[in-house]
C-alpha cells in the first residue's frame, strides 16, 4: 500500500505541508480564501529544532492501536487506510493517548482528525507530498519496515 514517508535529511522546515494539508481539507478553491486569518488544523505537523525538521502524519500502521482503542468505534480501516468517522467520534482523545507518533489531533470543531491520505478531499493525492518543495515527503509503496 502506498503510504506517506518523510525523510528528515530533506525536510527544510518550511511547513508548507501543514498549509497544503489544511487547504486541501478546506474544500475551497483558493488557499488565500481558505486560510487567511484562520488558525489552521493540519493533519500533518512539522517537528524539530533549528537543525533537524521532519513532518509527522499518520503512519497508517498495519496494526493500528488507535483503531483498537477507539471507544466509539469511530476509527476504521479502509483497505489499509486508517480513517475516522467524524460523526461517531465523541472527542474522548483516547487515540491521542495511544498513538505512538502523535499523529492525531483535534480539528477545528474539536472532533479528532487525522491524515487520510487526501483520498476523499479535493486534492485526490496527498497534498503534503505534492506541495513539498524538496521531496522530503513522498507517497509510495515500501515493502517491509526498514
Amino acid at each position, binding site marked *: 500500500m502506498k503510504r506517506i*514517508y518523510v525523510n528528515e535529511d530533506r525536510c527544510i522546515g518550511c511547513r508548507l505541508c501543514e498549509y497544503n494539508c489544511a487547504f486541501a481539507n478546506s474544500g475551497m478553491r483558493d488557499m488565500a480564501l481558505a486560510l487567511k486569518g484562520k488558525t489552521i488544523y493540519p493533519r500533518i505537523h512539522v517537528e524539530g529544532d533549528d537543525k533537524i525538521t521532519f513532518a509527522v502524519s499518520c503512519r497508517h500502521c498495519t496494526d493500528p492501536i488507535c483503531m483498537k482503542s477507539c471507544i466509539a468505534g469511530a476509527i476504521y480501516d479502509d483497505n489499509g487506510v486508517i480513517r475516522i468517522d467524524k460523526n461517531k467520534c465523541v472527542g*474522548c482523545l483516547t487515540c491521542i*493517548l*495511544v498513538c505512538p507518533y502523535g499523529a492525531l489531533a483535534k480539528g477545528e470543531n474539536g472532533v479528532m482528525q487525522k491524515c487520510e491520505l487526501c483520498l476523499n478531499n479535493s486534492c485526490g493525492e496527498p497534498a503534503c507530498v505534492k506541495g513539498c518543495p524538496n521531496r522530503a515527503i513522498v507517497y509510495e509503496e515500501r515493502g517491509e519496515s526498514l
Partner: protein
Amino acid sequence: MNEYLIIGNGVAAAAATEGIRSVDKAGTITIVSEEAHPVYCRPLISYYLEKKTDISKMNYRDKDFYERNGCKVFYGKKAVRLDPEKKEVKLCDGTVLPYSKVCIATGSSPFTPDFPGIDTVDKKFGFMTLDDALSLEKAVGKDTRVFIIGAGLIGLKCAEGLRAMTDSITVCDLADRVLSSILDSDCAALMQAHMEKNGIRFLLSDTVERFDKNKAYMKSGRTVDFDVLVTAVGVKANTSLVKDAGGAVNRGIITDEHMRTSLNDVYAAGDCCESRDISSGTSHILAILPNAYMQGFAAGVNMAGGDRIFDNAIPMNSIGFFSLHAMTAGSYDGELIEEKNDRELMKFFVKDGLLKGFIFIGEPSKTGIYTSLIRERIPLDTIDFELLKKGADYMAFSPETRRKKFGGVV
C-alpha cells in the same frame, strides 16, 4: 470446520470475531449476548446522556457486522454453564451450544455493597449498560436531585453526563479524592475543583451508612436528600463460567499471553479477565476498552489457529470532564518528575531507567508518545528524555529510530 463460540457481545467479543476472521474465513461463529443490543460502545453511555452521541452512532461496528462476519447471535441469553469436557455451553433457556473453541468475554457487573435500607430507595440505578443510561434518561429531569455513590471513572462520567439534565448532583466516595484509582491527590484536587466549578458537589472520605427512602445517612453524620440514586462503587468480573468449570480464576479469569485459560480450548478476553500489567509487573483486571479489544483480537486469532500474543497491557485512561482532560497511563511507581505550567500538569514516574507511568492534566497533544515509552519499554537513556519532559516530540528519539518509524511500514 471450526465452530467458534463467543460468550458475550461487547468489544472483546467483537474483537474476537475480527481476530477469528483475520485467520479463518470459513468456521462458524456463534455469539451469546446477554444484552438485547448489537455490540455498542459501552463507554459512550455518558456521552449519550450529554447528547454528544445518539443510539444510532453508538454501534461499535456497522450494522452488517455480524452478517458480514457470518456470526449467529443469540440476543438476551445468558450462558449458564461451560462444559470443557464435552465442549459445550448451556444457555439459560436450556439451549446447548457445542464449540471447538470458545471465548469467554462476559465482562463485568456492577458491584453494589449491601447498604442498609437500600431496598427502600425507589429510583436506584447502576451505570454500566445502555439500558442503565436509557432508564436514567427517563428518570432524571431538571429538578431531579441525583446522588452518585462512587467518584471513580463511572461515577464521574455519569455525573458529567447528567449535569446537562439537572442542576443537583452529589457524588460521594469513601476515598479522600476523586478518581482515586488513576489520579494522585494533586491531580485529583485539580479535577475535583474543576468539577465543582461546574456544579458537582462532592462528599469525600465518606460513605453511606444507611438509606431511608430518598435520604442517605452518611458516616460523617451528614445526610443527602436525593431523587435518584446511582451506585458506581465498583465492578466485579464475570468469572463464574470458568470458575464453575474448574478453570483458574483469581479476581478475574487467568489467561496466558495467548489469552488461553487453564481449560482446553477455552479463551477469555476483556473485563472478565486479568492482564499482566507490564508497568507494574503485576496481574490485575485492566477494565479498559483498548485492553478488551487487544485481548479479544488476540484470542480470536489464536482460536482460529493463528499466533498472536498480547503481552504489553498497561492501564491507560483518557478521560475528560467539562473540557478538562486527564490522561494517565502505567503505574505510579518510582521517581516522580513533575513538569507544570499555568495550563498543564505533567507527572512522570521513572524506575529502572524506564518510564513507568504518567499523569497529565491539560490540553493533550501527542501524549501517545509517552504511552509508547511505557508499552514498548524504551530505555530512557536511548532518547532525549529532557526534551520529552517539555513536550511530546519525536525529536527526542534517535535519527535512526525516526528513519525506521517515518521511513518504513509500521
